[in-house]
């Protein structure tokens, strides 16, 4: 059974949803508290759930990126562990410099909760795997407009770092980007919520595949 560390910051609110998602795929979740360091070797993968860390009163994710647990997470990254950030977790990874770009206020300036279709553009080190596969799941955020400078956009495009794109861009993200990965392809982040598409009764179970990690 793979061990998955779930990072909790003050204001994280999808932590229990990630716990549920990880358990559904027969993996063993554990909590990691933002104030404590951890040893990456005790785990197989890490997830940063959604929420409003520190209330998002400064830039979303900016304060969480400076917490002690994030120092351990950098170490995990250096060792090539899979790291997955969703929504606020994605914002934190960008703020921490583990992923390129930044997430800004949605184009219409408001929080948006809606269903979106996402297309897989490039493969990360772990699943899902089928290029051009379309996934349906909810998004729910105010600060989800992915932005990156032109020259860097070209770079992530050339490197194949664009992970997921929106079929109908809801928030004004550059290049319709919904999710990206780092160069080594072990760190991924996405704004929409695979943790809210686990069963048919939720409206879709397309999200399950995102927790079905193909770990060696």
């Amino acid at each position, binding site marked *: 059974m793979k061990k998955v560390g779930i990072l909790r910051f003050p204001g994280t609110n999808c932590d229990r949803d990630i716990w549920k998602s990880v358990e559904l795929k027969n993996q063993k979740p554990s909590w990691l508290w933002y104030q404590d360091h951890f040893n990456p070797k005790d785990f197989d993968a890490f997830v940063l759930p959604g929420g409003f860390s520190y209330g998002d009163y400064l830039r979303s994710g900016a304060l969480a990126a400076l917490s002690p647990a994030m120092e351990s997470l950098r170490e995990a990254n250096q060792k090539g562990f899979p790291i997955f950030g969703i929504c606020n977790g994605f914002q934190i990874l960008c703020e921490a410099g583990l992923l390129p770009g930044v997430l800004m206020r949605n184009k219409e300036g408001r929080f948006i909760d809606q269903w979106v279709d996402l297309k897989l553009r490039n493969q990360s080190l772990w699943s899902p795997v089928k290029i051009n596969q379309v996934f349906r799941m909810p998004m729910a955020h105010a600060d989800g407009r992915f932005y990156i400078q032109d020259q860097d956009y070209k770079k992530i495009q050339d490197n194949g770092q664009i992970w997921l794109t929106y079929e109908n861009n809801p928030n004004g993200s550059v290049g319709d980007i919904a999710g990206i990965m780092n160069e080594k392809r072990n760190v991924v982040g996405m704004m929409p*919520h695979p943790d809210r598409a686990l069963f048919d009764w939720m409206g879709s179970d397309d999200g399950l595949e995102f927790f079905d990690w193909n770990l060696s």
Partner: protein
Amino acid sequence: MTLSEKLKLYRISQSEYAMITDLLDREPQGVEWAIFSALWSEHCSYKSSKVHLKKLYSQSPRVLQSFGENAGIVDLGEGEKVAFKMESHNHPSFIEPYQGAATGVGGILRDIFTMGARPIALANYLCFGEPTADRMQELVDGVVRGISGYGNCVGVPNITGQTNFDKSYNGNILVNAMAVGLFTKDDPICLSKAKGVGNHVVYVGAKTGRDGVHGASMASESFDENSESKRPTVQIGDPFFEKLLIESCLEVMKKDLVVAIQDMGAAGLTSSSFEMAEKGGVGLTLRLDQVPLRDPSMTPEDILLSESQERMLLVCEPEKLETLVEVFERWGLDAVSIGEVIKEPVVKLYFKGELLTEIDPKLVVDHAPQYKRPYREWSLKNDSSQFSSESFKTPFNNKELIDILSDYRVGSKEWIYRQYDQRVGSSTMRDCSSPVGAVVLPSNRVLGVVLGCRPHIMRQDAYLGGLDSIFYPALELASKGFEPLAVTDCLNFGNPEKEEVMTEFVASLSGMNSACEALQAPIISGNVSFYNETLDQGVTPTPSTGLIGLKEKVENTPTSDFENEGDVILLVNLGSGFSSGYLSEIRGQQSQYIFNESFSSLAEKFKKMISLVSSGNIISSRVVGSFGLSNVLSKMCLKNSIGAKIDCEQDPWLEPFYQVVITVSSIEADRLAKEFNQADMKTLKIGEVGGDTLRWKNLNLPVSSIKESYVHSWSKSFPQLS
């Protein structure tokens, strides 16, 4: 200050002043003025409504906690229980919409988790004025942003709601928030009864500031031209703090570190401390100078009356204090012992060593005045025998229907609910786009939540409106297979000192009560909001309701839309009453209705509806509501862009008490129609799903036009908000 100035400042009447001096056997002194002002306010004491609320049907075998605590609790079986309640934040939201609505959400959430339940769902019942009314665009924007800003951050999904518009709300909007919390198997229920002489009284959460001082008495007054000046009485919310408070409070309760707990809501520290002592039959000493303050220059009176948000008062045994404080510190929150429980039943307030007052909490809580405000017996407004659909002739064609669907009162409210996180918690099965919100419980059963009260029916007749505030949402639950279990309410009315307002209050409450008794769904929590009036103009009497229902399985839950070409549309009749409805009001025609159903026979049919739906094969269902069949059939076309061909004699605009439209596959149609008929619900085939137009009588309207009218209604009336 002269006596009359003092009475005015503290909003205490001459007769109440006489009662106070009588109870104390002397004049009130110092902070005692503030204490009586707050706890004897309408908002805290329910002095105009208590005599009527006592008569409510409020018990059933499932009810574990009814009125008297922070929220009501219902046993769902299988180790699961839910706490739920609805509360108003009307006055503050009109003065300062963002903070007013946000703190309304925060307050109702605290009522739930203070009992030990984890909040799992939010719902909002909103009434606004006409889009062209003064400040209305700003009010709608602020309220929605406030609910969204607070609810999304604390991570509780908003799964259902209702938004009404009418000119009677131009000067007094209504913002009612409902929260539902879940206890799983080993979660303790915590109450607010202080006990254990020598135990610590602990202050937890955010620091106390000057915001909301005199808030409770503000909410107990009508507005005038100077409402703006009341802005400092509105509290400021911090949802991030609330989230920390939820997690830390649930943790200390689960670790058995808490003897009693109550949130500091209206009238802040005053009401929580006096009520906790009174309920426990004990006394408290409180050292006000130990209260964590934002501004050290605050006076004892400010500290007592502050309605700063995100604060709790709890009682803790001395040997557990250290562990308790550690938990809160881990979450970054203050937890400070500010006093002790004492045997003698008096609350002793100290400030820097000086005893400010000692009062028996019974005098302040129990002996608050109870008024028997004058009201008349209700007589039905309409002579129902004269109702005939013949006299009700409104044309029905493409243009008329488009007109109605593109009206802001009818059209899509998606602009509102897409700003709410409807799915955090990963348990939402039905969101705000559905007539019934639903979350899946850990036991894999489903909890349905729906709000009720149709103001246009209230304007027709307050008694009928009261009945309908229960029956209509209960039928919405039943039509999806949920058994209605219990009710919370929020009674929004004008000035209770006016006989006509009190008459409508009593009439609607009696309607609600009769419906609840028939359905055996007791009213177990709620609040009363009086003085919703500005310059003598009161709001439509609006007793909003929140119902919860239980369904044994996820499966066999009908959708609310036309799904497949060729499906058969059935119209199920549960009663024979009708109202000329919303259209007659909008068109300025005479409003008429007839309602002569026996309540018990209605309730019986609701039960049969639940069992027929749960046994499967119903593809979709919708209760026929405002603007009758024409509106409900149009709405069913939207999601999947499928039309229908209808053949039905009934007037398209009439509003029935009650009917449900269902769709079934053509092979099942005859069998199901027969089953409904046998269950005493007259059921007719009225059409077939299919095509890309809605066709009926003179109507032949493309679904794309229906969609466009429905979706664009919002931007037409709220151009600044789209």
